């Protein structure tokens, strides 16, 4: 990221003190959707594909405070919990408010057939690593989106790079085309 200016970060997950401190120190404006805790995942997945879904997705985004475009989107593992239609509608809406070249980061459960029933809650630790603070619980089938499927579900964000992680997840970086 360009360190000479402030950035707007959109976090699709929940707020955390540590993440806020990290981004606040960097002078970032943080937009938090908290999809898991406000019923937004079900809203998106259950909306009728088409205009109704697009409207639902657009309505989820917070009101703009400064008019600055989004630079970074933290999707965490949330794409696993959205249908590809829902993800596509959400990321299309996000893309309209993002700056060309904006980056979206996502984690996909890849090697295992199952994933936790509820999304993870990643929080930055003191050493800079990310720790999942969510409580362990039941598991559900993972959609195991392929790179191509995920690419189709990210709106105007196009795949920049991907890598397999040691925890069975695949990490993706997407970049918004101009």
């Amino acid at each position, binding site marked *: 990221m*360009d360190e000479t200016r402030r950035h707007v970060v959109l976090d699709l997950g929940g707020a955390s003190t540590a993440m*806020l401190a990290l981004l606040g120190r960097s002078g970032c404006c943080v937009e938090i*959707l908290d999809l898991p805790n406000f019923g937004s995942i079900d809203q998106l997945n259950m909306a009728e594909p088409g205009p109704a879904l697009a409207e639902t997705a657009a309505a989820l985004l917070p009101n703009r405070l400064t008019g600055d475009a989004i630079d970074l989107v933290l999707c965490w593992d949330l794409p696993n919990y959205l249908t590809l239609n829902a993800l596509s509608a959400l990321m299309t809406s996000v893309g309209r408010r993002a700056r060309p070249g904006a980056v979206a980061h996502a984690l996909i459960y890849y090697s295992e057939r199952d994933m936790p029933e509820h999304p993870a809650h990643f929080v930055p630790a003191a050493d800079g690593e990310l*720790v999942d603070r969510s409580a362990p619980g039941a598991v559900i089938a993972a959609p195991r989106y392929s790179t191509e499927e995920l690419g189709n579900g990210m709106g105007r964000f196009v795949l920049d790079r991907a890598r397999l992680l040691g925890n069975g997840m695949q990490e993706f970086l997407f970049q918004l085309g101009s």
Partner: protein
Amino acid sequence: MFERNKKDDEGNESQSAGRPDSDKNFGSFRSKASGRSGDSAVIGRSIQIDGDLRGDEDLRIEGDVSGNVELKNNALTIGKEGKVKADVYAKSIAVDGETMGDLYATERVTVHVNARVQGNIISPKVSIEEGARFKGSIEMDPAAVEKVLGTTTTSGADKRNAGNKSSATDTSKVAPKRPVKDSSANLNPPSGTS
């Protein structure tokens, strides 16, 4: 601003201690609805306010409030039972209950663990406890905060009172501007990853 009661929530004597017994009883009765808690005025949980709220003392809300809330030089606490559907302007804001609307504070906003907040937060210092539910934007950069507060203080209730004492002077008390430093998010992959 609000009626004073005999005892605060902790049972400590407050400013009505010297009143006649009948007055004390009345004050005690009123404490269930509105009164004082410590040094704060209190809107009790049976109270519903639909309209703008302004004042020059600290306030704790345990009831339902809809409309603008302005305590520009004071602290506002939205208690566990409090539900506020309003844009709030205060020196500091602490939320234990529910809010829907933007929170503007010249000093600090604290969202406690059981709180549910929907709306933007504009303040130089913001803390959100783990477990709190928050949805909205957070602006903490002092220069941006000053910019936003500078425009919003004249677009809220003050706008309707154009010609009265301007609140623009309040925004000059916001923390001084500082250059933006180190804007790198520096995110690393989750621990245990390759």
